[in-house]
């Protein structure tokens, strides 16, 4: 395959979902089955093409970056700036090729799952149309080789997320969640935008490779090291918003108001991973300081979210916090310099987290139907305290869910073990290189917490006995269209697809394909180079693996002891640590904090301004008013007798005319015709005389 062919196929991957969206949004309702087959087959075709692209890229052009550029706008010579052209285009490197497959694969499976899950929905065809638009937008982000197109895709996925979270907008909480997601993302995107603006002002180009070349040539924003770090952090702000990192993570749990397959596609596997992908893309311009900020943000996020996940009872909320925590993991890995590990975890996490969400969707779907069947509209079908004992009822969902849980906990022979192990080894190497030991400590702690809350979820949902057996008599396994995606994703959560060596000591094909890019920043600002990092990594790898295995085992053990064997009473622990429990249950009071600081801050500012208005502005006005009043008293007398007399007279006059003119308002068209003609004549004579 020639390079051009490969790029053309990549373009076809990009445009297929867009074509599906265009047809669906206009004609979706009129198609048979509301067009779900059309969307699904379009994205499936895109998946096949993406697979071809990946295969061709890895076998034929393993080390190359293929690019396709076109000039969008040519401003020619801009005064004070020189020649200016905005060149847009797509680029294809190994990172992109792998992401293409991940996005289209998850999207295809979610389309398939949605056919079962969304059946009978009132806006069925529109749902599929939005899924197509989302896939297109995500592929734009993945393929863009310049910040401009990337930003366009970035905002497009944002709007798709908004539309899909608010899919059931009749529900107040859903439309609120959609608005919250959009507004919180705006904060991050503002930083991203400013970062893009700084880079564009410096280099007069949006192209990533040209920006890299410029920095490599010693050209820094505003000629200062500090501004390079700042622009890196500002660009990272975009990732903070999209990937729900601390302190902008608050939108993701609320986004669970959307349909569950949407949560799997957008809020677990792809869109939220866009932030991680962005950091990976921009890795070469990140200075050591910027990377440190990134690593700490990731670590804080991972820790906070993991602690919150322990105390949540809504199955989707637990998974949402787990997603935030795992995204923090990836960000932390990238910040620590474990580039390959971070990206590898993105891929494996996309598979098992999408699987977890789809599995939870299957459970919710079954619970919902069962409760509906039992005429029970009080019980929350998403609350894990209302579940339990579903294992026998839903065997496929149960066993795939277990596989996903093992993977996310980092148990050997799963994909999660490979990627998580690499991340932990990377953070350990980072800690020993730079002395920031908090990062690896958080990493191991979160690994244990993850194992604990995930097994808590599995035990409470599927194992044990159900409290009220009648309630779940009507729970049934979901149909093939919903279980097939689960089975595919479960298979993809096994190590063999990523590396033939389950121990993780020999690098898999992803690790070989995606190597950490050389930093372009000046040496005095750069993080320890890849060579140094790899060397330390080799020393600590075994230690990291043993440590991570033991903390994961401890976490699982604790979960079984507490919730399965009931050796430890969860309620007793909760009571003993009541303040901590309340703190976690209320999500560290982030929403309350933002309510108090941001929302009330704005309201307080408004109150302050109002006070200024009332006392200072109005005071001046009132002073002027008193002076005026004296004058007014005099003129008042004049008014009463002279002006009022005239006014009353004119009022009388117009009253009289009104009485006369009322006669003309007859409702007869013919009278109106006559007046129209008269009006024309009057106008004619007026203009004649003037």
């Amino acid at each position, binding site marked *: 395959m020639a390079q051009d062919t490969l790029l053309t196929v990549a373009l076809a991957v990009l445009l297929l979902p867009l074509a599906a969206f265009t047809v669906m949004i206009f004609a979706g309702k009129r198609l048979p089955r509301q067009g779900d087959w059309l969307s699904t087959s379009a994205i499936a075709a895109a998946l096949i093409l993406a697979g071809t692209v990946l295969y061709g890229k890895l076998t034929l052009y393993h080390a190359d970056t293929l690019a396709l550029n076109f000039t969008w706008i040519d401003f020619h010579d801009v005064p004070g700036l020189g020649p200016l052209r905005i060149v847009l285009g797509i680029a294809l490197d190994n990172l992109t090729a792998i992401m293409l497959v991940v996005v289209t694969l998850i999207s295809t499976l979610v389309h398939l799952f949605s056919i079962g899950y969304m059946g009978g929905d009132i806006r069925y065809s529109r749902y599929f149309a939005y899924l197509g638009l989302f896939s297109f937008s995500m592929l734009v982000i993945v393929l863009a080789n310049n910040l401009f197109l990337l930003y366009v895709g970035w905002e497009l996925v944002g709007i798709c997320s908004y539309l899909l979270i608010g899919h059931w907008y009749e529900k107040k909480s859903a439309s609120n969640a959609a608005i919250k997601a959009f507004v919180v993302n705006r904060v991050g995107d503002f930083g991203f935008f400013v970062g893009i603006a700084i880079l564009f002002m410096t280099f007069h180009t949006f192209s990533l490779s040209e920006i890299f070349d410029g920095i490599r040539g010693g050209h820094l924003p505003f000629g200062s090291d500090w501004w390079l770090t700042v622009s890196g952090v500002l660009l990272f702000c975009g990732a903070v918003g999209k990937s729900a990192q601390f302190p902008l993570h608050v939108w993701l749990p609320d986004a669970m108001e959307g349909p569950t397959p949407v949560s799997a596609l957008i809020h677990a596997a792809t869109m939220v991973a866009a932030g991680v992908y962005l950091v990976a893309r921009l890795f070469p311009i990140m200075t050591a300081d910027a990377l440190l900020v990134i690593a700490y943000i990731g670590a804080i996020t991972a820790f906070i979210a993991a602690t919150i996940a322990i105390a949540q009872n809504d199955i989707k909320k637990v998974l949402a916090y787990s997603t935030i925590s795992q995204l923090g993991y990836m960000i932390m890995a990238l910040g620590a310099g474990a580039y390959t590990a971070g990206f590898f975890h993105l891929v494996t996490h996309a598979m098992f987290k999408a699987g977890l969400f789809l599995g939870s969707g299957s459970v919710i779907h079954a619970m919902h139907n069962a409760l509906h069947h039992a005429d029970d509209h009080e019980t929350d079908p998403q609350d894990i305290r209302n579940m339990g004992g579903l294992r026998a009822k839903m065997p496929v969902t149960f066993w795939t869910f277990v596989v996903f849980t093992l993977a996310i906990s980092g148990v050997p022979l799963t994909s999660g073990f490979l990627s998580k192990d690499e991340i932990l080894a990377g953070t350990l190497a980072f800690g020993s290189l730079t002395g920031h030991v908090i990062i690896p400590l958080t990493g191991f702690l979160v690994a244990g917490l993850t194992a604990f809350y995930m097994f808590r979820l599995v035990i409470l949902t599927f194992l044990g006995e159900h409290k009220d057996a009648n309630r779940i008599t009507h729970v049934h396994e979901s149909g093939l269209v919903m279980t097939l995606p689960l089975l595919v994703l479960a298979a993809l959560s096994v190590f063999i697809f990523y590396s033939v060596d389950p121990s993780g000591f020999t690098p898999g094909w992803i690790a070989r394909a995606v190597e950490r890019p050389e930093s372009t920043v000046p040496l005095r600002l750069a993080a320890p180079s890849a060579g140094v990092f790899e060397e330390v990594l080799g020393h600590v790898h075994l230690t990291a693996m043993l440590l991570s295995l033991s903390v994961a085992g401890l976490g699982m053990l604790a979960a079984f002891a507490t919730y399965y064997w009931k050796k430890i009473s969860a309620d007793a622990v909760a009571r003993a640590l009541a303040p901590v429990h309340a703190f976690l249950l209320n999500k560290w009071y982030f929403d309350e904090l933002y309510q108090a600081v941001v929302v009330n801050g704005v309201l307080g500012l408004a109150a302050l301004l109002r006070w200024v208005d009332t006392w200072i502005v109005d005071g001046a006005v009132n002073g002027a008013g008193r002076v005026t009043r004296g004058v007014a008293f005099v003129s008042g007398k004049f008014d009463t007798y002279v002006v009022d007399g005239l006014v009353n007279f004119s009022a009388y006059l117009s009253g009289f005319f009104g009485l006369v003119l009322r006669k003309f*308002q007859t409702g007869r068209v013919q009278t109106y*015709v006559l007046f129209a003609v008269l009006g024309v004549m009057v106008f004619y004579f007026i203009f004649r005389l003037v």
Partner: protein
Amino acid sequence: MGSLGSFWNEFSAWLPHVQLAHFLIVSAILFALGIYAIATRRNAIMVLMGVELVLNAANINFIAFSRYSTDMNFDGQVAAIFVIILAAAEAAIGLAIVLNIYHRFQTVNVDEVSSLKE
């Protein structure tokens, strides 16, 4: 009175020799008659007849100007053709509406169909 007298002399000399203005004056009278019918007749069909008179007056103007223009072009006559086409369409639609009104109000007297007033 002198000016009126000179006007009369001029006018009476002009009157027997038919020119453009003669046609225009005929058209003006016809137009006024049509407007009168539209504005006063109670029967909707009579109103339609008034509309036809107005259209005919307009047509006379078109053709007269076309004939008396210096280059004798035919644009005015083409315009007149379109007016006739429109008149035909208008008559058909107008009568359909009148029939509908009759069906609904049991009258074609326009002043009794004054629901516009409410």
